[in-house]
């Protein structure tokens, strides 16, 4: 209910990007980008290399501060906040080149993902009061559930770096889910996956959406993107080229030109 506007009953966007620009020196990475993401949808961002997709992700997650524009999450402007504060608000992400915590086990990785949902600080750890033990136990149960959800419960105790690459991608998703996010940003989740794993990933992403989690993903694998996305935003050289349903985007002249060249 909270996602619905009280007067109209229309779903309020969970994320609104309003006129965001970002440049690095002379390079304009993002130019006046605006779009909205509705709750519990899968929203893809596509575009050729250098289109500004990852820059957009980094702006939303607080790694970069936009030069101009607003990023509104759940009715609150979040641009310029620190990444950890944005994560604590319920926006979690995965990385293009899998960034797992290599010295830790699979389970511990998911537990770090749960960091912002736990309270135990240094004093709590030293005192190890009953509420700290309870919190830790609950976190472990929850982390195991998530590992089951992505199909990694058998390897919970293994070092995360021992996993095959495809599994590492699934672990990153489980880790991001550890914080019970409302919005997840996935940066090329299918890159490096074989076709079977990509199929599994698609099913998993739909299952995550059905849990009410909104997904914003950057992806190059078009069969996956077209198959599962509710809406697609196309970026080209830092500008918004088109936006719409997969069908609309596929038939858009400008998109075809940008992807396949004008001669077609």
């Amino acid at each position: 209910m909270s996602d619905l506007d009280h007067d109209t009953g229309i779903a309020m966007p969970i994320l609104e990007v309003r006129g965001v620009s970002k440049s690095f020196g002379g390079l304009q990475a993002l130019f006046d980008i605006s779009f909205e993401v509705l709750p519990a949808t899968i929203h893809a961002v596509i575009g050729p290399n250098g289109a500004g997709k990852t820059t957009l992700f980094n702006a939303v997650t607080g790694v970069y501060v936009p030069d101009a524009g607003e990023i509104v999450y759940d009715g609150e402007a979040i641009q310029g906040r620190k990444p950890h504060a944005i994560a604590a608000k319920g926006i979690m992400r995965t990385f293009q080149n899998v960034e797992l915590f290599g010295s830790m086990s699979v389970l511990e990785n998911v537990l770090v993902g749960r960091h912002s949902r736990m309270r135990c600080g240094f004093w709590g750890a030293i005192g190890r009061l009953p509420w700290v033990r309870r919190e830790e136990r609950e976190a472990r149960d929850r982390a195991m559930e998530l590992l089951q959800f992505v199909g990694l419960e058998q390897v919970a105790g293994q070092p995360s770096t021992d996993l095959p690459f495809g599994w590492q991608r699934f672990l990153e998703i489980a880790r991001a889910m550890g914080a019970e996010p409302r919005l997840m940003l996935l940066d090329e989740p299918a890159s490096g996956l074989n076709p079977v794993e990509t199929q599994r990933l698609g099913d998993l992403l739909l299952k995550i959406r059905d849990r009410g989690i909104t997904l914003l993903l950057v992806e190059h694998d078009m069969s996956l993107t077209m198959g599962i996305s509710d809406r697609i935003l196309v970026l080209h050289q830092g500008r918004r080229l088109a936006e719409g349903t997969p069908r609309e985007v596929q038939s858009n002249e400008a998109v075809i030109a940008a992807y396949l060249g004008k001669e077609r």
Partner: protein
Amino acid sequence: MKFLLFAGAILVGGVLVKNPYHLQLLTFIGIYTLLALGLNMLMGYAGQISLGHAAFFGLGAYTTAVLTVHYGWSPWMSLPVALLLTACVSFLVALPMLKLHGFYLGMGTLGFGMIGYILFRGWARVTGGDSGLVGIPPLSVGSMELTSKTAYYFLVWFCVTVGFIVCERIVGSRMGRALRAIHDSEQAAGAMGVDTSRIKVNVFVLSAVFSALAGFLYAHMVTFISPSSFDFLVSVRMVTMVVIGGMASIWGSLLGASLLTLLPEWLHVFVDYEMMVYGLVLMVVMIFLPQGLTRGLMDAYERSRSRYRNRHANP
């Protein structure tokens, strides 16, 4: 369980060892273990190097020395002051310093260590300058003075045990995971909601307080301190203990401190070549056990066990 065994070993050591020189050596190992333990939390777990921790060791020692010698305070009054002052100083140092990474952090903390050393030497009116401070009172409990070597041995190792428990609990908690996450990937840690700058500052303060406690125990043990006990080489020695013993290993701190304290004793037989052999041992350890003694020995144990099992599984 581990700690019961540990406490048992301390007890046995204290009862059996009667030679005062050996007792003193064991007590020094305890003090160095405290130093290595604190630094290991910062370096081994959070992955932030410090080449200036001798300054905090010195700050703890000088604070209690100045308060007890010049102002006649009871050592038990000066202990909280020493720890609190060190916590405040380390907090102020950490705020700008921990924005640095890698080699730059090493250089920054090195500079801080130098400043500490120069203050201990130069502020002669308070610290006694090069000639140091003499006549630091020994610790006493009630009316009983802890002058006997055995009593002091037990006091130091009691502190070490408490330190071990504190560190072990932190390591096994949400905070310990956050520290290791920062070590592995600061960017990913931040994206997972870990307030990296704040936790780095906190663990820096924690490790500084451990050093100050070690400094306090050191000052009241030797009853005389001078700047040379807190110079750059001591910082390097602390880092060496952590690296040789094993980064991110609590027991490695004990192993590293023991090795670096005992090795010079064993190497006396080499007379003039002592330091060369010492350096050689450190080189060999690093070449063959790059992850430090603890991890290296454990890996060797695992390997031999699996080899043993394989041989018996398929004869």
